[in-house]
């Protein structure tokens, strides 16, 4: 799977090795990424949060369905490791449930954004000048619309769900990958190897699949990790402002928002855990993104 995205092997061009069989085919960027300590930390943290959110509830079973005001706002104890919230739900179990929706929305929104952006950018770059200009001006227009307002307006009209929130967030963050891919394809299409393929008689669709897409994947993957992080933050903003998912569904931003009411009361367990989860997940994704960028950057390859 990885080698599809990063088909590199490290080999120095020395004559004496030319006759050796090729042994080590482990892709270079992957080795480089594992060699990067921050990347390892990032991956470890991300995997932790994925396990925590999706496997955690199977191990640590809690009531997240029935409101129990008797148990409301209890401090951490043996029965409730992180205490309970105003509805009497176990806070740790709730963090897991919120994590599920936050991560799902983050990933899904990023996929939506990157897919639209890549297609848009590639088509624009390969079109004639007029179409290209119009398409890229559309991107500029979208970039100048304040995204949060639109989400808030939509949230008032529609009932937000995981799917609709993802689509809205994704629909407002494809502009950056569109620009990235656009500039990348503009450079690539002037490269000699594209000319070489054209001289060989390669049809246009094959040019795109065999040459353009694989060569933009590096940029796209890097951007994707940052997109996930941004989408998780966006969900948190929306949730914090009270326009997030509907009760009993919850995300980390919602939890933060709910907990804020009790800041004066000293119910720290309602605020800090959710905040820490958001921060750490975003940090982990940014670490991975940085490492991926280093690994795919040709300019750094020979260092």
């Amino acid at each position, binding site marked *: 799977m990885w080698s599809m995205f990063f088909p*590199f092997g490290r080999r120095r*061009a020395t*004559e004496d090795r030319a*006759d050796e069989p090729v042994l080590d085919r482990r892709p270079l960027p992957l080795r480089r990424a594992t060699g990067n300590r921050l990347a390892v930390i990032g991956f470890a943290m991300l995997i932790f949060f994925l396990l925590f959110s999706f496997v955690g509830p199977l191990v640590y079973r809690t009531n997240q369905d029935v409101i129990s005001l008797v148990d409301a706002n209890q401090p951490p104890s043996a029965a409730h490791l992180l205490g309970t919230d105003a509805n009497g739900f176990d806070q740790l179990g709730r963090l897991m449930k919120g994590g599920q929706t936050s991560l799902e929305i983050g990933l899904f929104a990023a996929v939506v954004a990157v897919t639209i952006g890549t297609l848009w950018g590639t088509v624009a770059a390969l079109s004639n000048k007029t179409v290209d200009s119009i398409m890229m001006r559309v991107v500029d227009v979208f970039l100048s619309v304040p995204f949060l307002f639109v989400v808030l307006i939509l949230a008032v009209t529609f009932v937000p769900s995981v799917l609709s929130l993802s689509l809205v967030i994704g629909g407002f963050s494809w502009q950056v990958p569109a620009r990235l891919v656009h500039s990348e394809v503009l450079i690539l299409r002037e490269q*000699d*190897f594209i*000319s070489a393929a054209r*001289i060989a*008689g390669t049809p246009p669709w094959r040019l795109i699949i*065999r040459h353009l897409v694989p060569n933009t994947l590096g940029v796209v993957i890097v951007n994707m990790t940052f997109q996930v992080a941004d989408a998780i933050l966006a969900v948190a903003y929306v949730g914090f402002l009270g326009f997030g998912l509907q009760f009993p569904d919850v995300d980390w931003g919602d939890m933060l928002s709910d907990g804020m009411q009790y800041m004066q009361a000293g119910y720290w367990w309602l605020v800090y855990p959710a905040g820490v989860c958001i921060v750490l997940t975003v940090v982990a994704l940014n670490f991975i993104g940085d490492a991926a960028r280093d690994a795919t950057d040709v300019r750094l390859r020979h260092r």
Partner: protein
Amino acid sequence: MAPLLDVQNLSTSIKLTSSTVHAVDNVSLRVGKGETLGIVGESGCGKSVTGLSIMGLLPPGGAVTGGSIKLNGRELVGLQKEEVRRIRGNQIAMIFQDPLTSLDPTKTIGYQVAEPVRLHRNVSRKAALDRAVEVLGLAGVPQPRERLDNYPHQLSGGLRQRVMIAMALACEPELLIADEPTTALDVTIQAQILALLRDLKERLGMAILLITHDMGVVAGHTDRVCVMYAGQVVETSGVVPLFRETRHPYTRALLASIPRFRQGRENALPAIPGLPPDLSRPPRGCRFAARCFRATEKCRAEEPPLTGPTSAHRYSCWHPLNEPRTLAVSGVDVSGTTGTDLVAPDARSPRTADGIRTSATEHKPETATANGDREGPLLDLRNLVKEYPVGSNAVLRRNAARVKAVSDVSFSMPAGTTFGLVGESGCGKTTIGKMIVALERPDSGSVTFGGVDVAKLRRAELRRERRDLQLVFQDSHSSLDPRMRIGSIIAEPLHAQHWGSRQARRERVFELLAEVGLPKNTVERYPHEFSGGQRQRIGLARALSLNPRLIVLDEPVSALDVSIRAQMLNLMTRLQASHGLTYLVVSHDLTVVRHLADRIGVMYLGKLVEIGSGSDIYERPAHPYTAGLIAAIPLPSPAAEHAKKEPAITGELPSPVHPPSGCRFRTRCRFAQERCAVEEPEPRSFGPGHLAACHFPLRTATPPETTADFAG
């Protein structure tokens, strides 16, 4: 007298993530006051790192690990940064290869030239600017005072290099390090810059350390020479003895692998087999042993010291050339004074990257027989015109200026021959190559290939026609998709043309690899794992895959080192013979074109100015531009270089947006008269197949006053 610069046993290494490159190993050299020392060698031999070590400008991870560098008796190794900074740009100055990247694009010329003066001499802004005007004038920049407010992008490459030289001169340095100062420039500009450097050295009494890969530059512009190989000095002597009494086999091999004018392509060039060693793991013994035809067991075991009969001429070789024979070397002629046979012609070496001989000879020249019965030329270009609008937004600027890349060019070439197209950068030669393979469409005119006008073909027809028309690119790095394996890259044309089954394509790829001398396992690798020469072989294999009739070679060897270049040239000659190929060679390098081509066309600013056979062009040029171009080539012979006087062509290339009226060369031509500005010269005949377009040619036209046609 103590030398100005005294480098003793300098070793420099550069740390990479996984290895350490010992770029310079135990190098000693001296530069006297007012002397020019040339450091010559191929890329990666440590010549630039030596220069950077002296300047204290090593890249990250680089450090001087041993030895001393003394300037005027003062030790530079281990100096505090502050003190180094005081010396750098003041006592030692440096000019770099690429004048485009070594000037700051956001600062004016005046600011940049005055900067070292203000840093090192405690003077006012005004005085510093006055000094800038003075040195710009010294460096031959016309109207220096008006130029002060220009930005680098407003100047041509040659002028930028003059500005760099002016910056270097600003503080009257005692030593100027010139690292490949003319490599990025056209040959006529190169001649001007080198003449300027020599003149400045004499006038200012400055010493120059000239780093170059070009034996011709060394021959004409240095007093003494150090030949470097794999991080070490292998031979050092005065410039005349180095060429006359060459001792080290590497030096001899370097000299021999340069194509000569008088040498046609009947004989293969003596190439140095193999590649230079990897300096992160330097070999034991003599570093050249693996590629040396005279190498013995001793060479592989023991490192030869740098000694010689006199301290003026020293060399590190156990079996130097031209010396009384001390060792009987079995099977090898050691008496060697002829030079060419001392280097393995590549077919004789058993272990080279160049093991080409395998199947090339068995291959039937099928294409040749297929085309043999055709009448007339294989390729015929008529009145080709190509212009590009300047500026990107064509929608808004309706009357935008246009670059006249190719203006009314016609020529033709019969099957099985090689046509060479030469000219300086921007003369339109690459555009013609692209139009022939239909990467670009001409604005007007026709490209007739085998009776079909390629420029008018529809897409599907063109795709079929592409089988016969292939291109080998100049930059082997960008012409291979970095994310594809070599096997897929070579098979791509086969795939696109639906050639054979998967298995047949695979077989074909192996066959092609063998023809260009690469091992089978190449198919699984990626382009970045190969050296420039190997990548160029891959490009050639790809071009050959469909058995084309015509291959356009766009600067096929200009990115390669001299020794690798000779391997490539031999390979191309051999493939042409075995496949009956027709070549169009596009190059700025006249020696390369001379070596490959049967007929040569000389281009200037989008126009063909002269056309003729190799000997017509090189021995009997009729157009002043051709003559000047040939005179500007640095020859690897000190005597010939010193005999040259002024640069033959002065001035800069005019803008192709507004080319001069009449004869486009007139602005740089010493014979130009009023008529040249008014009337465009028609081509006239100067012998069979020899035509030139000039009003005042260097030879008499035969018959005079009748015009002819280049396509004739």
